[in-house]
């Protein structure tokens, strides 16, 4: 089972759309990274406040409830672009060329079906919390601080819409690759062997810092 893979780029129009979309996706993913960072800071403030001035951060739990959806959903499309959602590749890892692109097309198509339906379903979930006429448009708010819940719920269909665009673009890419039969199409995550993936993993975690320590 593998996660990561590499995406080739060139100056074709297909690749340029891919890279434009990637900019948005990467920005969303970075926001999600900052949300993780804020979890850390919030805890320090909360614990510090409680133990030094006996004043815990009010609504700490409410904040976590708001921050978690940012972490859980915003990066979903970027992770798909990079091929980071895990799968079992013992079978697809053996396919090459047209057969591989056909298999990818089918699985991505099913993913798209799911995500389109979930955009609808999660939007309905958002609508139940949202009300034009209520204060802060909110039907439903957090327990301690009364923060409206609808913005966090809206994040879900928004993130899911972005991954739908990504999936449509990947479907077009796989269809093109199937037609041309090329081996290394641009703009698509290329499956890697366990060894390639491992080498990359090792590279990413043992960067300059470790080298410096060893030498």
């Amino acid at each position, binding site marked *: 089972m593998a996660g990561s893979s590499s995406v080739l780029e060139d100056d074709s129009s297909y690749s340029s759309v891919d890279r434009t979309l990637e900019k948005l996706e990467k920005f969303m993913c970075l926001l999600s990274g900052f949300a993780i960072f804020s979890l850390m800071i919030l805890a*320090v403030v909360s614990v510090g406040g409680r133990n030094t001035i006996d004043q815990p951060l009010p609504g700490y739990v409410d904040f976590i409830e708001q921050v978690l959806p940012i972490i859980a959903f915003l990066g979903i499309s970027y992770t798909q672009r990079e091929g980071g959602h895990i799968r079992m590749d013992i079978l697809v890892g053996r396919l090459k060329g047209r057969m591989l692109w056909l*298999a990818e097309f089918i699985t991505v198509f099913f993913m798209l079906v799911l995500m389109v339906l979930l955009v609808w379903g999660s939007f309905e979930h958002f609508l139940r919390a949202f009300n034009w006429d209520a204060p802060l448009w909110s039907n439903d708010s957090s327990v301690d601080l009364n923060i409206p819940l609808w913005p966090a719920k809206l994040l879900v269909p928004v993130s899911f819409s972005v991954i739908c665009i990504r999936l449509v673009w990947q479907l077009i890419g796989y269809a093109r690759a199937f037609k041309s039969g090329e081996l290394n199409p641009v703009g698509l995550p290329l499956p890697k062997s366990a060894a390639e993936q491992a080498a990359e993993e090792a590279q990413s975690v043992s960067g300059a810092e*470790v080298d410096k320590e060893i030498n």
Partner: protein
Amino acid sequence: MEPIEIGILVSCGLLVMVVLGMRVAFAAGLAGLIGLIWIFWSKKGYDPSAFIWALTVATKTAGQVPHSKITTNALSLIPTFILIGYLAYHAGLTKALFEAAKRWVGWLPGGLAVSTVFATAGFAAVSGASVATSAVFARIAIPEMLKVGYDKRFAAGVVAAGGTLASLIPPSAILVIYAIIVEQDVGRLLLAGFLPGAFSAVIYGGLIVVMALVIRNFGPPVGGYSWKDRLVSLPPTFPIVFVVLIIISFIYNPFGGDSWGTPTEGGALGAFVVFCIAMIKGMKWGQLKEALIESAKLSVMIFTIIWGVLIYVRFLGFADLPNAFADWITSLTFSPLVILICILLAYAILGMFMDAIGMLLLTLPVVYPAVMALNGGESVSAADSAFGLSGAECAIWFGILVVKMAELCLITPPIGLNCFVVAGVREDISVQDVFRGASPFFVADALTIAGLVAFPGIVLFLPRLLLG
């Protein structure tokens, strides 16, 4: 068609999608959604005009799962634990650990290999990721072992196996995931992982000492360190001790009274400590940004599987499949222990082809209720149970067992990822060599699991002692 038959058919469909290489999270979500549509539609007798109704109800049911299930407070532990791991590399803790371990236990037969095991165990305390632990130590420990004459296959095997210790010693992301899926207390599970993790490290160490005594030219002890040398090697490792202590004291207060906070706060505070050290060691903005993006990617991957599987679980509830499976398991005439061992063996086989998180999330919704039923139910008392454990204790014990099982698969062919990683770092060592070098540890792990099955007290000692 009965709901239970729909449940079985859809589950088989899910299996086919996963084998065909569909991303696990989405395959589970789709199986759940299709299953819900099917069950609702079947209730209306497959009336064509009712299909849209079934589709709408199913989609609305599935659509609320991602947001509502993700906002569980305990889930915030996962991103913080992942962040700790990424920042730990920049905090330069690995070399310090290896150096300290070498000075303290290097004099044992096979001393450098034993040091490697203890250093990986220590690093596991700040890194929840087995694969990363192996990658880092392949660069630090293997060259030193080769220098004093260890067999390169064995040196590589030690590092690959040592990496597997990461998943039990807190902070462990995989134990948090288990706790959430089976709805058990996260703090108890994290505490429970500590002794089995340490126990595994001791078994590994003991195995190396025995091999060094039996096999000729195995690798010399490294001695000559004074007590002063040993003592000065300790302070650089304190951050790791500190992180572990913080996380534990947020589960259990060593000074009596209430704990200092929740495990979620402990995890976040631990991340903050490692972050400060990394900043002191000169981490650049670019490296921090990279660490944040990588943590976000890994977190979203895990969260996506969680909500995907939970949509599937919602459907399983309607289909009543877990209950039916549990009834079947308890109706078997074999002893509960034999059945449990069979389940663990099935995990060993499955783990050869699937990654640990995907495997556990996909199987636990069905397997966990069955194991609980085997023991006598969720709320059974220790006296009436099959394994002599109360329901809650059995949940913890089984969690540690399956996670250890999943880890074991990181060093078994054909896709034991840790071995691939070590071979990826060391171009002079082939994957086959690493698998061969790691094989003694496979035996050690089998013994460890047998020990944990026979003596659940090893798993439950700390939670019982500290949390009652």
